[in-house]
């Protein structure tokens, strides 16, 4: 089965003016970095892929995930995970509840769900954090919880929106490695937008500079 993420002849326009054109395929486990100056429409591209683009934009082209056209699917049915620069943990929920929100509902019992959440926390070195208030976590801890919350929702592809720019230099390396490792371990195609050349270098994949160039 084809487990890649395909952007086919995608052109995004606003008020008649073309903002960007992209046509590329991202293989399972591959990271494609999209770079460009601010205002070049990097985040707009991500909104289009997640299905949260404002109606003010006109878009041609389609998004294929696992060979299936998801262009018209609502955002919550697309199975695309997203990480922002900020962890955006829901402030009214505990760390465990945040993870449970991501965990897809299944037939398993409450105790098994708890166990999966504990295991997810242990995987990123946060054993016993389930009852904690997210506001009491450090930046790096929050980023790790956000990553696991996203992975528990079992996405088929991963989008990263400047995901590491909110962290200090030391944590940045650590979290960057963690995210890329998990994505590769699950064979997820990853689309990352960033303005940091170091991010792109660490990703080790192709780099797409927007403003007309295609990846090839």
């Amino acid at each position: 089965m084809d487990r890649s993420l395909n952007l086919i002849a995608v052109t995004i326009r606003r008020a008649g003016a073309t903002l960007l054109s992209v046509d590329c395929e991202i293989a399972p486990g591959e990271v494609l970095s999209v770079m460009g100056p601010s205002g070049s429409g990097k985040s707009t591209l991500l909104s289009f892929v997640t299905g949260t683009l404002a109606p003010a934009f006109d878009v041609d082209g389609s998004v294929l995930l696992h060979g299936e056209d998801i262009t018209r699917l609502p955002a919550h049915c697309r199975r695309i995970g997203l990480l922002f620069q900020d962890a955006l943990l829901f402030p009214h929920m505990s760390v465990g509840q945040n993870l449970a929100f991501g965990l897809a509902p299944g037939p398993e019992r409450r105790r098994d769900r708890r166990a999966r959440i504990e295991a997810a926390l242990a995987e990123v070195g946060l054993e016993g954090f389930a009852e904690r208030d997210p506001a009491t976590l450090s930046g790096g801890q929050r980023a790790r919880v956000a990553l696991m919350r996203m992975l528990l929702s079992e996405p088929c592809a991963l989008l990263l929106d400047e995901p590491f720019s909110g962290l200090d230099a030391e944590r940045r390396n650590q979290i960057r490695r963690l995210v890329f490792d998990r994505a590769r371990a699950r064979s997820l195609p990853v689309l990352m937008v960033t303005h940091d050349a170091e991010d792109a270098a660490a990703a080790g994949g192709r780099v797409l500079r927007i403003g007309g160039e295609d990846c090839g």
Partner: protein
Amino acid sequence: MHRSVWGILPGALPLLTLMVMLGPVLLGLWWTLAPALGLLSEGLSLGPLRAALAWPGLREASLLSVTTGIGSTVIALAITALILAGWSGTRAFAVLQRLLSPLLALPHAAAAFGLAFLIAPSGWIARSLSPGVTGWDRPPDLLILQDPWGLTLIAGLVTKEVPFLLLMALAALPQTAPGRSRNVATALGYGRVTGFLKTVFPRLYVQIRLPVYVTLAYAMSTVDVAIILGPNTPPTLSVQIVRWMSDPDIGTRDLAAVAALLQLALVIAAILAWRLAERGVAFLGRRWIESGRRGSAEGAGRVAGYALGALSALALVAGIAGLAVWSVAGLWSFPSALPDGLTWRSWQRHGPPGLEAMGTTLAIAAIATAVALVLAIGCLETEERRGVRPSRAMWLLYLPLLVPQTAFLPGVQIGLLSAGLDTGFGPVVVAHLVFVLPYVFLSLAGPYRAWDARYSTVAATLGAASGRVLWRVRLPMLTRACLTAVAVGMAVSVGQYLPTLLAGGGRVATLTTEAVALASGGDRRAIGVWAILQTGAAFLPFALALGLPALLFRNRRGMQDG
């Protein structure tokens, strides 16, 4: 399931909201017009008009409405501008703001009674100066309350309008970036007050223009405050309309309808005149700006602004204290500053009927506010999902607040009766909704639109449909804003006098209608009990709105100020 329901609702909800707000206003205006033209009695005729014109007090009553309305609004706006100009951004300002904000919830009737207890010839001020300063050993025979010029009425309106305008202005102030303007003006050698008035105020005024018009329309047509503090022979036009409406002689309804149309015309004319005056002031203001004068009375302006703002806050607080003391006063002879003895007798006598009225009051407030909250969230969520920006239709929200209550509520009662429907609890709730909805919407819209939409995107990518995002993420995160909107809505409902009186046909007894009904009797102990209960009913929801989130989210630091 959520999607399919929402599929039908988006078009319907904003429309339904508009109908709820504007329907009663438009129907009420129509049913005011019909009897005024004689259509309900003898067929199209000028009879009602001639009869109304023949009433000898008409000129004076109309004049009173205009002078008290415009006078109080001008003064309140001037005080607001001076406070902001002299003090915004300072610590002293934060103190004043914290003092004034809760006073916004104080019902107009309770505020008016409190003020009356303060400044009456036998009130606290006269007592504290007697007999030492004044030499009075009994209350002087002075017509302070209900003076024929409406000066006390103006004072009462100003004390309640200053907190309202100040909070409206504060909400709009950040958009004018006052800090930067102040720095530039200071660098150019302008003082604080002059700099603010020349650089920030013109932009600020544009933002608060609608609330100013609302204040003007309200002040010109208020009934409860005018019954308590306003003149009697003749009263203001609005009070006279209510007198005619409650006259057992059915023929006076037509008179009331004519007077209601006159009231509407007066308010429209006043707003148009205000608009023209804005141009005039703007013209003079531009010449003042171009003159480059740096202003001379800086210090005096600052002191006057702060003193007047603090005075209106203190008057309200002292007024409530006065009501509380009277409610437990035994014998209280003049000029003692405090009662000779304290007793629970007034509470024992008026407490039980008071609590019953409190139940009715809170039931009406809760139902009207719940409906308003659902409609407001529905509209805001629709706006969000369609990705539309807040539209210019926003001014429609202000329409029910701009049409004077006395212009369309008589029509609501006449219409209900003519259509064979009865007045009572249901119509009262609908009439309250007209006034509750705009305030609930205005209170909720800011936080709702300012909410970080990336949370919604994150939740959606985690597989949550839009309904789940709304219920599990957005509304819980906006708990505080929703509860504040509920508190605002309930305070507005608790304070309503005329909608309760007219849509209820005089048979729905709320704390406000009962308290105002006591105004003519002069039983200060009874007034104390009822006005304190009314104040309590308005403040209780605010206490809950502050306390509940603190309790619910005591372990969630990220929710402490959200």
